[in-house]
């Protein structure tokens, strides 16, 4: 949950999306200003913090970069519960990753924090020739579901900081009283064993 203190806002942010969509690359670009062509798959989840100054406040993002593999799905609630913001990432050259993104949106709408700021990021915008997902389609979907949408490129840095900046601006300035640590106990067991078997 985003919390304010003298216009300092702590906001937990989670990145969700299919394998290879570019979640880690977006974070790496935003946090370190770097890009690695052959980014290895994330194992589990990685945690970063990064501060961003917007007009009226300083936002300290606590970013969870999750792994996209199915086997980690049951752990996802741990990361999005209590999150003030989420970036759902897909790869514009991969239709399946867009469908996966929609699934994430549904899950967040059903189970996430209702005040969550959600962004839809169509990554790999530097590969227009291989595009499989039209920007209009994604834009329309985002509008219907109350997300804001941007096409990004971690490689060229296009729109990357903009997504985080936009989120920072949209974060609610007044906080509902809620657990500030962001780590919320789960209300269902969600055993990995159970979920892993469904992908077989």
């Amino acid at each position, binding site marked *: 949950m985003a919390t304010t203190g003298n216009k300092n806002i702590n906001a937990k942010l989670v990145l969700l999306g299919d394998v290879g969509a570019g979640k880690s690359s977006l974070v790496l670009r935003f946090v370190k200003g770097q890009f690695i062509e052959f980014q*290895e798959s994330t194992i589990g989840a990685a945690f970063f913090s990064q501060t961003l100054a917007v007009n009226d406040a300083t936002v300290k993002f606590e970013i969870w970069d999750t792994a996209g593999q199915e086997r980690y799905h049951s752990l996802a609630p741990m990361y999005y519960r209590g999150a003030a913001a989420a970036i759902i990432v897909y790869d514009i050259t991969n239709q399946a990753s867009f469908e996966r993104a929609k699934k994430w949106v549904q899950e967040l709408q059903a189970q996430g924090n209702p005040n969550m700021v959600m962004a839809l990021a169509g990554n790999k915008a530097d590969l227009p020739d291989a595009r499989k997902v039209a920007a209009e389609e994604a834009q329309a979907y985002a509008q219907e579901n109350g997300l804001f949408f941007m096409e990004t490129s971690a490689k060229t840095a296009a729109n990357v900081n903009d997504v985080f900046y936009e989120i920072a601006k949209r974060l609610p300035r007044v906080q509902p009283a809620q657990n500030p640590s962001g780590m919320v106990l789960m209300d269902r067991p969600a055993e990995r064993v159970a979920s892993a078997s469904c992908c077989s």
Partner: protein
Amino acid sequence: MPEDEDQQQHVAAQRESSPQPPPLPRRPTTIEEEDGLRPPLTPSGSVRNFKGSPRPPLQSKATTAVSQVDVLGLSQDASPSNNQRSRSHSRQPSGRLQSRAGSDDDTASVRSVQTLAPGQSGDIESLLDDVVGAAATETDEGVEERDDAASLDTSPLQNIRDDLDESFSSEFEPVGSFEPDGSNGELLNRQWRAKLKHYLILSSAGKPIYSRHGDDQLISGTIGVVQTIISFYQGAQDTLRGFTAGDARFVILSKGHLHLLAISRLGESEAQLRAQLEALYMQILSTLTLPTMEKMFINRPSTDLRRPLQGTESLISSLADGFTRGSPATLLSALECLRIRKAHRQVIHSTLLKCRSPQLLYGLVVADGRLAAVVRPKKHSLHPGDLHLIFNMLFEADSVRAGGGENWIPLCLPGFNNTGYLYMYVSFIDPETGSPREDIEQPLDGRKRDNEIAVLLISANREAFDEMREMRDKVVDQLQANGSLAHIRRAIANGRSSCTSILNTNKADTKGADTPAPIAHFLYKSRANVQFVMPSAGPLFSSTVSWRRLISLYARLQGALHGKTTHLKVVHVVTGGASALAWTTPTFEVYVVAGPRAGKHVLAKAAMGVVQWARREEERLFVVGGAVF
């Protein structure tokens, strides 16, 4: 001794051009080719002054608990007269050896016992066939020791499998993909077959799961053949464990619904390859847990396991490549620790205990890829195989380190419990400032950034990230405050000690303490601690090929010590390029490697020196017990 000096020289010459790893039988054709080639001896001339004299007795009080040690002298030979290795078994049953040059009080009591009959079957036999030759190849002493030291200026192993250079340098090159028209199939197949080492994993239904080399299209035929052969034997209720074809050894590990296959032309023994396959299997379990995987296959026998394993191929490959490059940790099933003063380690341990979160199961401080300290519950120690998986994930594969953040990783440690997950907090810290590492360098330039310190905190509670993070902060703050980070930093900077400095610390034990060490490298494993120590690789073993040669020699010694049918206590091997000795007791294993002219007594003395050093420094070299709560 049937072989004269001339013949010995020929042996050395053959070694030089021999494309085969020492312990495996040669292909006759290759040897015919070699027979034409008899290059002169290299400067480090592997053979000289061999005499057929029986070994002089060597006797003194052992300084260890073990009073009697069996010795089997092995050395290597090949006969030019036929296409087979000549086998001259001249072992001296219960002959006593004495080092003339050795002092009276520092050498092991060594008794030579013939432990193997010449025709004995089993793993050892093939090794003996190769290596048993002139057992009594004692050289003239006096000149000899000086020569030993001198010969180490050149590579002591340079005669072992010289073609390794060529084939090994392309070992890790990827095999390409098929052209759309399939025109390059033959080329790809040739590339694939040229690899010295293969690992294939398939399901019992014949679905490919993993191959180190080649894509699906390339390996599909091979997978089919492998599947057919394995199921043929399974149908006959006679599980196939392995076979040898030419110079390639095939080892199959069948585990539940998985078949793991290793194909090696590096001369590793069946048991060694099996241990490697076990490690790959553990890596798969570490991702999925055993019950999950079993359930998948029970629900659907044709499950494609690559999907649930997606993203871990790089972990499997980095494990596999570690084995191919040569990993003493896997060979010895032991862990390497950071050498640090006992008192300094105690401070780290007490810091870990003081800051311990109630959610903590295991806590580790790892520096330079080596264990510096561990905190663990009283009931549980850490399985070396599990630690190897963790170290591989953190220090060999780039996945975690490249990210540069803090990590929260669910993983199963199969040695601890193969049915469930633990959660590992990983944070790399800057040894200079103690702060979490902010700036990541390009991690993909192939260079390892070994100077990092990692704090690993493992919990059984998946929600414990914040607690672990808090503990990390406390631990790092205190380690910084009490100077431990500086100690670790210094230990990293010092690196591993050289053989010379190690053996020269035994001033009382060595004659001429200023001379270079008579040995080039060693491994010492403390069985009680399941840890090992080795010296710096030095310039001799800095290249991947020379390192592989060294590991092949160690693998051969280890294979002889831990044969399927026999357990030897002492093994001495002379190859064209090196002389080596392995010695095992209930408390330790020690392996020493020297130049080819080093006599047994020199090796035995050096081995004793290593043992004495390791015992004296035990609590610096090893994490003894760790911090226990």
